[in-house]
């Protein structure tokens, strides 16, 4: 039998305050925007570097 079974009930976990939730949302949006910008950048640079040849490369 695990020792944990004899322990008192566990805490409900970390409960974020409204301010913490607001800041986490801000961070999440910033990460999403950065990732989106990164994808667009890689796409555009790939087109610029390869040009029409992007569709004509050996597999």
């Amino acid at each position, binding site marked *: 039998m*695990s*020792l*944990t079974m004899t322990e008192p009930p*566990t805490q409900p976990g*970390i409960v974020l305050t409204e301010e913490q939730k607001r800041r986490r949302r801000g961070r999440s949006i910033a990460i999403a925007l950065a990732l989106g910008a990164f994808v667009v950048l890689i796409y*555009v640079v790939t087109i*610029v570097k390869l040009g029409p040849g992007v569709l004509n490369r050996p597999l």
Partner: protein
Amino acid sequence: MSLVTDRADLISPVRLDPVGVEPSMAGAGDYFELMKPRVMSLVVFTALVGLVVAPGHLHPVLGFTALLCIAVGAGAAGALNMWYDADIDAVMARTARRPVPAGRVKPREALAFGVTLAGFSVGVLGLMVSWLAAALLAFTIFFYAVVYTMWLKRSTPQNIVIGGAAGAFPPMIGWAAATGGIGIESILLFLIVFFWTPPHFWALSLYKTEEYAKAGVPMLPVVAGAAETRRQILIYALVLAPIGASPWLLGYAGWLYGVMSIASGALMVALALRLKRRPAERAAKQLFAFSIVYLFILFAVLLIEHGLNLPVKGGVA
């Protein structure tokens, strides 16, 4: 407690790691602040000049990518600096409100942010533009975060002299991104920023001496005194003025650059001389402020000459 935990343990990590699970209070703006945006803007500007005045042609999209990578790399170095220097920053009024000492960003968050940005900036610059430029960027981040921040800053009054190399590399990185090489002109741009750094930072440290002393940072005024600092500022200003004019003297820049670099270099020396003769906080502040203008003038004129295609001694800009 057994290592094989039940589900309640997994959703309550505070029991496993009571120190590290406090919810972050960092906002997106705090992470942006970690990148030292004001330093980043100077880095981007000098890198842009290096990139634009370099011979050859780089597609605008690749040029933008190179500048973005250099900016993010500079931001990475800034974040790593703020991670390591949080103890110093907390003591100094000028830096106490930075995200890490203020408690808004945890040190490990700043470290992870800096390392991630460094990896991405160097990798993308290498893959998309130039591996030489990427190698220079990687070295610059290493030099600023490790050589300057972790070693020199806390150990020698020559910290900002040697560490100034980190701030001098961006125009060289821009040049390398455009040409794939390192030319004499890019070395001159490096030298201008390198010799500009000591009088710039020592002028600041002259009126922040008490704060640096309180934080235990061996800046020159703390270790050698204000008089010696003013003397060395003048020496560096005297060396900087001809180096500032060297792109024109060696035929890489036009008459406009020659006139502006000589005039602003002379003013820089005059302000350093006045500071030495009549020590006053106001004189130090004026020299500090003008040093920023001086560097901006030199690089802006190079940009203008190139944009207008003004003639230089050996051809056109």
